[in-house]
């Protein structure tokens, strides 16, 4: 038998039925929408992947290591040093300080934030985001792409769901009501509900227009999560003084005097199969606030005219 004949005869297959193509497109469109939402929270996506790679053994080992941390002496809010302040005390103080800040941005057009982050053994990346309330936003992140990256409208991740700007403002600011609302939305995401709740607190504080009242409630929720330990006074990578608290591999550096989230980190520097440089990740939040406008992106939807002139130029 001739190979070519055999190959030709076996190559004939029916074409895809229209319903097959439509069904595939529907699935793809859902994934595209999710990809757009994930881009809004690129940092979150990076971290979540890493979190899921962590084995139970690694978490147990990490927890055991924390048992040897000696509770330090802290100077909190200009008051007398507090000996052996607990993580909960620090977060409650941050809550009160956050709630005392001015502001609330239910009607702002954009939320602008500047941060740096660092992943594995790679170099530091600069990130600046203009998250749109009702309009598309813009991101620059040299770890993702060069130039301006268009974003969809704001989606703030909270466990198994994404919240719009208005939904963020509709969250209860009573911490008990907030906690049950957030727990109900976890939907099985994360290593455990407590671990995920601790992560959600960070998700809603970073790159988010959360009001002072919501920030206060978030730190109060965090103060009630079991298993959060106090690391102590630290200096973040931007040289700012703060206090570190952590749960599992997730660490927050906060400023108890105004309730700001200064820096967060997670993962391990040990090489992993999928991350030879280690899974360690750290992000430092330099500034955030409301903005009236965002930079224009360089990408313009091609029009008949631009296509024609491009065709002419290439001929």
């Amino acid at each position, binding site marked *: *038998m001739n*190979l070519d004949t055999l190959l030709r005869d076996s190559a004939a297959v029916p074409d*895809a039925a229209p319903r097959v193509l439509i069904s595939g497109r529907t699935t793809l*469109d859902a994934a595209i929408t999710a990809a757009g939402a994930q*881009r809004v929270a690129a940092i979150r996506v990076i971290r979540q992947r890493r979190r899921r790679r962590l084995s139970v053994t690694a978490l147990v080992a990490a927890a055991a290591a924390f048992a040897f941390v000696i509770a330090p002496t802290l100077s909190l809010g200009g008051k007398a040093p507090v000996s052996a302040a607990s993580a909960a005390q620090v977060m409650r103080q941050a809550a009160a300080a956050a709630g005392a800040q001015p502001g609330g941005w239910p009607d702002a057009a954009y939320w602008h934030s500047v941060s740096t982050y660092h992943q594995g053994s790679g170099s530091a990346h600069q990130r600046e985001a203009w998250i749109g309330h009702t309009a598309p936003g813009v991101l620059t992140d040299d770890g993702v792409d060069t130039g301006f990256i268009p974003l969809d409208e704001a989606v703030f991740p909270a466990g198994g769901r994404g919240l719009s700007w208005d939904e963020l403002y509709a969250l209860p600011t009573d911490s008990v009501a907030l906690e049950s609302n957030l727990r109900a939305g976890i939907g099985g995401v994360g290593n455990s509900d407590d671990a995920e709740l601790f992560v959600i607190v960070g998700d809603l504080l970073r790159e988010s227009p959360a009001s002072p009242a919501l920030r206060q409630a978030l730190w109060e929720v965090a103060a009630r999560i079991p298993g959060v330990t106090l690391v102590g006074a630290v200096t973040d990578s931007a040289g700012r003084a703060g206090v570190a608290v952590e749960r599992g591999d997730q660490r927050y550096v906060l400023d108890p005097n105004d309730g700001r989230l200064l820096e967060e980190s997670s993962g391990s520097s040990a090489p992993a199969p999928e991350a030879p440089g280690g899974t360690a990740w750290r992000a430092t939040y330099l500034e955030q606030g409301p903005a009236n406008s965002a930079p224009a992106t360089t990408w313009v939807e091609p029009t008949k005219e631009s296509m024609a002139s491009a065709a002419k130029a290439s001929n």
Partner: protein
Amino acid sequence: MRATDLPDTELLALARTQPDVLGVIYERHAPVVYRYLARRVGPAAAEDLLAEVFVAALGARLRVQPHDSGSALPWLYGIAGNVVRSYLRRSRGHSLADDVPAVDWDAVDARLDAAALRGQLQAALAALTDGEREMLLLVAWEGLSPTEAAEALGLTPVNARSRLHRARSRAQSVLDQLTPAEL
């Protein structure tokens, strides 16, 4: 006239920051990718895997390098090959480490009219390495040029041509050795 008129290379460049551009690539190439899948796993499984290929492409779009041919197809075939292997591993209960040919032979035999021919292609292709088999099938079944197949398999064009030549002569010699009774 919008993104649907852009060539693949520009779409792939845009897709890095505009995930919805994958929808245009789907409209353009889904029928051909479906046939690729149907040839390897049969029409029923191809229905299930079609979306999987494009969803995987969505995730891989940040790593894509536009190909000289100007077509996204070699890239999509490369992804489709991985999706097929992963599907066959799942359906046969193999582990990730197992080497699984990216073809379901039952689906291939179902397309050959004469019972006497069934098993022959499998016998011929079983003599090839995975890379040789995929090279031969991309050219013979999918109608790719050796250069495009090289792109799908991550080879240089020169290596692709010599691999194709090796694959063809080895497969034909196996067919030649089959006894007349088997033919």
